[in-house]
């Protein structure tokens, strides 16, 4: 399979075979991600890390990935110190980064920004989130995490909980899980339901997601509980927000009815949707999930820039 020079813009650009290939390679990366093994396969290579919007995990793990493989990183984590402030277009910034580096990681507030960046760049572009749009590396690390923990994704019962309407990363995840034949249950307040077009995509892939507002019942036989953040801005008043957030809180009481091997995932940052008491249980997998961003991003950088461990 040839990934050299390929852009990573949307999970939908990849076949299941290609995704499997990436995830298998990411597995090989684990000892290198942990620092137990070293190999400078990206020595002499430079990554542009262009974050027009704040990020902790995605940026740090991309930059760490490049460093772990012996490469170097240039870029910014806050556009206020750049010509962007003087009104420079994204396309011009990308042209520059293209001539200064071997790959570009970009996060930008506009949907489609990474697709546009790829048009103006010869070196591969990796989408680190475009507005409310796509976030393919998050999707890949989510798939990777489920596969690592559950051995396979097919037929696993996966509950997606929270803001399923505006959280677009959960849209690509639903699509990808359907591609793998997972059984999906969607739990959200009625005002934040999964859009019909996403449910339609799942159905096209042969998966009929079950929608419910009853979390307790939904998690009883679940293998994975994927929690997303419910944003305050989405609600007309604080009272309504508090009511909804209260009814979807994941805590030890709720987990009493869960299966022994249920894993709980969250793209982080979390606010109040998962009680910190859950962190100490063996269900909590969100920190390991965040670590998994490293082997997955190392695998991607290695594949698109070239050079194999």
């Amino acid at each position, binding site marked *: 399979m040839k990934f050299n020079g390929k852009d990573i813009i949307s999970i939908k650009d990849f076949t299941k075979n290609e995704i499997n290939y990436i995830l298998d390679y990411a597995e090989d990366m684990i000892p290198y991600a942990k620092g137990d093994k070293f190999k400078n396969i990206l020595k002499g290579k430079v990554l542009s890390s262009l974050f027009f919007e704040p990020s902790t995990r995605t940026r740090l793990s991309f930059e760490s990935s490049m460093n772990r493989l012996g490469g170097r990183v240039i870029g910014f984590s806050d556009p206020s110190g750049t010509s962007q402030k003087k009104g420079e277009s994204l396309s011009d910034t990308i042209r520059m980064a293209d001539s200064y580096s071997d790959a570009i990681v970009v996060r930008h507030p506009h949907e*489609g920004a990474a697709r*546009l960046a790829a048009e103006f760049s010869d070196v591969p572009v990796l989408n680190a989130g*475009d507005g*409310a749009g*796509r976030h393919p590396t998050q999707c890949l690390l989510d798939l990777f995490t489920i596969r690592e923990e559950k051995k396979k994704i097919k037929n696993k019962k996966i509950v997606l909980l929270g803001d399923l309407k505006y959280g677009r990363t959960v849209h690509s995840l639903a699509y990808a899980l359907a591609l793998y034949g997972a059984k999906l249950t969607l739990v959200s307040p009625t005002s934040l339901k999964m859009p019909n077009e996403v449910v339609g995509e799942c159905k096209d892939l042969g998966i009929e997601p079950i929608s419910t507002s009853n979390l307790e019942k939904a998690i009883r036989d679940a293998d994975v509980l994927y929690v997303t953040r419910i944003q305050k801005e989405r609600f007309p008043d604080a009272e309504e927000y508090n009511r909804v957030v209260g009814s979807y809180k994941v805590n030890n009481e709720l987990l009493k009815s869960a299966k022994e091997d249920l894993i709980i995932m969250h793209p982080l940052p979390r606010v109040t949707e998962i009680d910190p008491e859950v962190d100490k249980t063996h269900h909590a997998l969100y920190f390991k999930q965040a670590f998994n961003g490293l082997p997955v991003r190392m695998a991607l950088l290695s594949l698109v820039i070239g050079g194999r461990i």
Partner: protein
Amino acid sequence: MKKELKIPLIKNGTVIDHITAGNAVKVLHILGIPISTSSVISVAINVKSKFGKKDIVKVENREIDPQEVDKIALIAPKATINIIRNYNVAKKHKVELPNEIIGIVCCSNPTCVSNANEPVKSRFNVIEKDPPKIKCYYCEREPEDIADRII
């Protein structure tokens, strides 16, 4: 047939027939007519036909290239292009949406990068032809009010 004809016959030119009722002016806009032509143009709006109401546009002394016109299928998917020579229909072409629509419709998503200050034209993939359904190449939104989004 004569009863239907509300506007005079033309000797040579192009008749765009079966335009979705009410959209004739937008069709002219997409084609850049009349800005780009000095031809006489007649427009009939809400003409009765066997399939309900329709609009018709007649352009004298200009043969419009059917390929150039296919993009009007966005707002007039049933339109036909009739090339008139010496009062007769010499060629008839049913418009068909191309697979990609570039620079004609603006994306309905205000935060789409194609609406930002970047040197690119709007770009849509056509996912259904009739009725037209299009998806933004950049942000993947599917605008519903296509007719109102013509640039």
